[in-house]
């Protein structure tokens, strides 16, 4: 029996293979998966639950990729279109002295050149020299490489020199070219996404990883996606945290074309727990409350997550797709949610070091 073998492996901490992962998915025992994932979480980060006081900066929503999965992007000239200039960025950061991490992700602007993005990073670094800058997904890095004629490695070196301290984990979607052809045909390929991460890790740049599920992908494709991430992590050990994004179909072409509905909380918790069990070489899993809503994010803490992400100032991308959560949250609320589960809230910096003043 594959299933009982899988369960034996889980209890002895051995690695799961593809068939075993699929059998666990099929078995659909939510609490078993949750409890097992919680044990794995506690073996790695004990009773700590991390959060960070961060700020999101989305430089622009004007995008040449026009992915069917996205509700955020638009054409220049659209009445929703915006593109921040440096003095806009400066304004956003005026009241950000307490922030520990700046997260910058944006669309692929058809006219802005690479130096626009580099300058934005330099400005953040100048205003907040001690803050972690978690910026740009591999999709953006591939775009920078194309528009500048530079290699991934050169692009990443310039960004590191400008102040980027880690790469964002988005844009992975499902690492299958069949799926990408349908949901984001103009974005980088699976192998490009992985290659950017590999290059970043070799340069000493930590990154996150992600998966966006609940659209047109098969369960096998989800599992293959996780295994690709696990293989690369074996090779480089450069991924810090994994994030799971349930697809929000509202206002997207993909949602319309395939008549998709947001998957339920059951699926969210199941995928979180299962991914935690598969990605045995990842330390951290985020419960991204913006996507999950706060109640489910709280429950995610007993399904393998150890990071509630941040007190995000102003989130635009997911809310464009109809996310129901509020756009910001206070430190008190985050700490209360964590303590209530019997865990210990730890404010972290960009690298999961605890911020001492908070202890």
């Amino acid at each position, binding site marked *: 029996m594959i299933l009982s073998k899988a369960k034996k492996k889980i209890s002895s901490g051995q690695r799961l293979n593809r068939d075993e992962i699929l059998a666990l998915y099929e078995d*659909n025992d*939510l*609490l*078993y998966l*949750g*409890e097992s994932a*919680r044990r794995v979480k506690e073996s790695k980060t004990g009773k700590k639950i991390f959060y960070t006081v961060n700020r999101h900066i989305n430089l622009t929503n004007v995008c040449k990729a026009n992915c069917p999965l996205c509700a955020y992007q638009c054409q220049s000239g659209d009445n929703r279109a915006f593109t921040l200039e440096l003095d806009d960025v400066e304004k956003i950061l005026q009241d950000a002295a307490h922030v520990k991490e700046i997260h910058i992700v944006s669309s692929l602007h058809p006219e802005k050149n690479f130096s626009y993005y580099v300058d934005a990073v330099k400005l953040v670094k100048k205003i907040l020299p001690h803050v972690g800058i978690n910026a740009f997904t591999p999709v953006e890095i591939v775009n920078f490489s194309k528009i500048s004629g530079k290699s991934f490695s050169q692009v990443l070196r310039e960004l590191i020199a400008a102040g980027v301290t880690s790469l964002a984990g988005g844009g992975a979607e499902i690492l299958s070219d069949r799926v990408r052809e349908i949901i984001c045909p103009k974005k980088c390929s699976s192998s490009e996404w992985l290659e950017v991460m590999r290059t970043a890790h070799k340069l000493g740049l930590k990154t996150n990883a992600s998966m966006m599920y609940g659209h047109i992908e098969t369960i096998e494709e989800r599992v293959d996606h996780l295994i690709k991430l696990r293989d690369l992590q074996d090779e480089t050990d450069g991924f810090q945290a994994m994030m799971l994004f349930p697809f929000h179909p509202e206002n997207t072409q993909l949602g319309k074309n395939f008549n998709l*509905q947001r*998957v*339920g*909380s*059951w*699926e*969210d*918790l199941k995928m979180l727990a299962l991914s935690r069990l598969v990605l045995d070489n990842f330390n951290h899993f985020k419960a991204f409350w913006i996507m999950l*809503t706060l*109640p*489910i994010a*709280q*429950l995610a803490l*007993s*399904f393998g997550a150890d990071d509630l992400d941040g007190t995000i100032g102003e989130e635009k991308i997911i809310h464009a797709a109809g996310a*129901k959560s509020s756009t910001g949250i206070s430190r008190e609320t985050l700490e209360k*949610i964590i303590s*209530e*589960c*019997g865990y210990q809230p730890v404010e972290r910096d960009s690298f999961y070091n605890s911020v001492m003043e908070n202890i």
Partner: protein
Amino acid sequence: MFVRGELEKIESKVLNGKRLSREDGEFLFACNELSWLGTLADYVRKKICGDLVYYNVNCHVNLTNICKARCKFCAFGRDSGDKGAYAMTIDDAIKLVEEASLDPHLSGLHIVSGLHPTWTFENYLAFVEVLHEKFPRLHIKGFTGVEIQHFANISGLSVEEILIKLKAAGLETIAGGGAEILTDRIRNTLCPKKATADQWLDVARTAHKLGIKTNASMLYGHIETLAERVEHLIRLRELQDETGGFQTFICFPFLPKNTALEKKINQTSMWDDLRTIAISRLMLDNFQNIKAYWVMLTVPVAQVALSFGANDIDGTIHRENILHDAGATSPRSLAEDEIIKIIRDAGRVPAAVDSNFNVRRIIK
């Protein structure tokens, strides 16, 4: 707080089908082992009721929101003359039910209302008579223990006489609301003008003796202590031992918005909601069904609650009023398709039931 030996002791009681004590219940609320609680409750659920999850295609009928009790936890009640105060006529009720009857699967009505200061018992009774006559196919569940006690008070009839008249008019089941927390300390503070704990229990007892099934509920997350929650569960369990007339137990997390307690009390977390459902499943070993009421829990939490001991997800409702006055963020109704999907995604089998839990259709 956390004592491994204590957990094992309780676990072995549950696995051997032994009853949990008051102390066990209090320990469960203190232990903070949510997924362990869920697993145990899920075990019991599976043993007692298998993999079917019950729902009904129903329509809520709230005859009036004008109420003389004005309990502190309520955002629905109004004084007559207040903005938004309403009282339905019989024609209004017929119109609402006609509209809901456009769904051929509609199987029942759920009628609960305010304690109108000038309506007589006959006024309430007339709604049941007419709706039953006009829509004989629909199962009528109506009135909480609080309303039944109120009818006795205003009519001079006994609770038994009231129930006999309602039954003759077409009422089949009594609703489970109004139990709140069955201790006089809580009721004197929050809802001094309505049925006492003993009166509420006595209405249920009388109904059960007359062969009328009822539901039970608990409103938690306000000023009660965890020990009072356990006390409440034990009082229900004792009555169920005596009569066997309760069908389902419903956990109502208190929604503070627009109530007199809004500024003092924060809404419960899903953590609290799920452990309360799981502990209720474990303590109420003589109840067949535990309901995850999606209106209050929200749909995502209600879905997850299906693995924390719940086997009943309430109904389509048509148009919910009472809790939406208290800021409920869930939709006012769910389509049957949506309910079926919620249940199926949780790996369970949807079964449409009437208000007495007779299975009408199993959705394969």
